């Protein structure tokens, strides 16, 4: 009985959504805001990646809210999980795993920082690169559970990066602009040092996300 009711519910939901989706102008979206942003972003922001312009400049305060949610979620997860104590039930991993993680660590670090620092030029940015950075530290933690980075270091990086993000926003406010308005010279479109303060903002996001997620994964793995 329960199964049949659920099946009917799922089918009904599917038909309803299909009926709604049939009215969408597929492939020919009007783009009321999109066209405006596409026309103005290269001159106003100077970032080759328009999505980055939207995420960090036009919707910068939204990204700050996103960081706040991620911070709250990671903190709450850590709080709920509690401290498992110093029981290291799994000691050092085997030789192959340790050597592999040693080889992988610098490569992952390089890729992570590359993705973070090229966020305004190519696909990617602070969130994606931050996840790669967290993976680098988590891999080395899995290979050597006793050598985990201290909780204080992680909190310090996280706090400083978050403060840097807000600080750049406040600096724009102090300079007479709006909160999180891009600062500095826009530079040449498509060069590494361009788009004003956007690379700095993404660097702060990358460090914060990386430290936060590395801490969360290490806590879950305990």
């Amino acid at each position, binding site marked *: 009985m329960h199964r049949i009711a659920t099946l009917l519910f799922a089918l009904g939901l599917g038909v309803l959504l299909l009926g709604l989706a049939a009215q969408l102008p597929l492939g020919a979206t009007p783009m009321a805001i999109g066209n405006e942003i596409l026309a103005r972003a290269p001159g106003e922001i100077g970032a080759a990646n328009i999505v980055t312009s939207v995420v960090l400049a036009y919707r910068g305060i939204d990204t700050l809210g996103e960081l706040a949610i991620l911070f709250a979620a990671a903190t709450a997860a850590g709080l709920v999980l509690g401290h498992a104590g110093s029981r290291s039930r799994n000691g050092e991993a085997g030789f192959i795993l340790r050597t592999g993680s040693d080889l992988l660590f610098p490569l992952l670090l390089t890729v992570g920082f590359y993705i973070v620092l090229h966020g305004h030029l190519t*696909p990617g940015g602070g969130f*994606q690169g931050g*996840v*790669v950075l967290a993976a680098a530290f988590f891999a080395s933690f899995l290979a050597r559970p006793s050598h985990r980075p201290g909780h204080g270091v992680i909190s310090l990086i996280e706090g400083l990066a978050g403060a840097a993000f807000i600080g750049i926003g406040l600096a724009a406010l102090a300079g007479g602009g709006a909160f999180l308005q891009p600062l500095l010279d826009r530079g040449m479109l498509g060069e590494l040092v361009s788009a004003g303060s956007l690379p700095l903002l993404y660097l702060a996001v990358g460090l914060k996300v990386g430290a936060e997620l590395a801490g969360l*994964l290490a806590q*879950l793995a305990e």
Partner: protein
Amino acid sequence: MAWLVLLLVVLMLGAAVLVLLLDNLVAAVAAASVVSLLLSVLFALLAAPDVALTEAAVGAGLSGAVLALGLRRLGLAGIKAEDDHA
């Protein structure tokens, strides 16, 4: 292009159904990662490389790691099938 999309969508929906039907929860988490991976290919085809990269890194990688570690923490990561017939 159309046939590639058809193949990807069919595989993705199949993996999504498997997420609900597989008895072993570790296998279900793996199926969820497969859904995210195929979804990231679809995002790349939809001219959204930023979203594709995010989905591949966050959805397929990090989310799978979080869920698998959670399963280990819950003591459900064993090979033995669990009596969880939906």
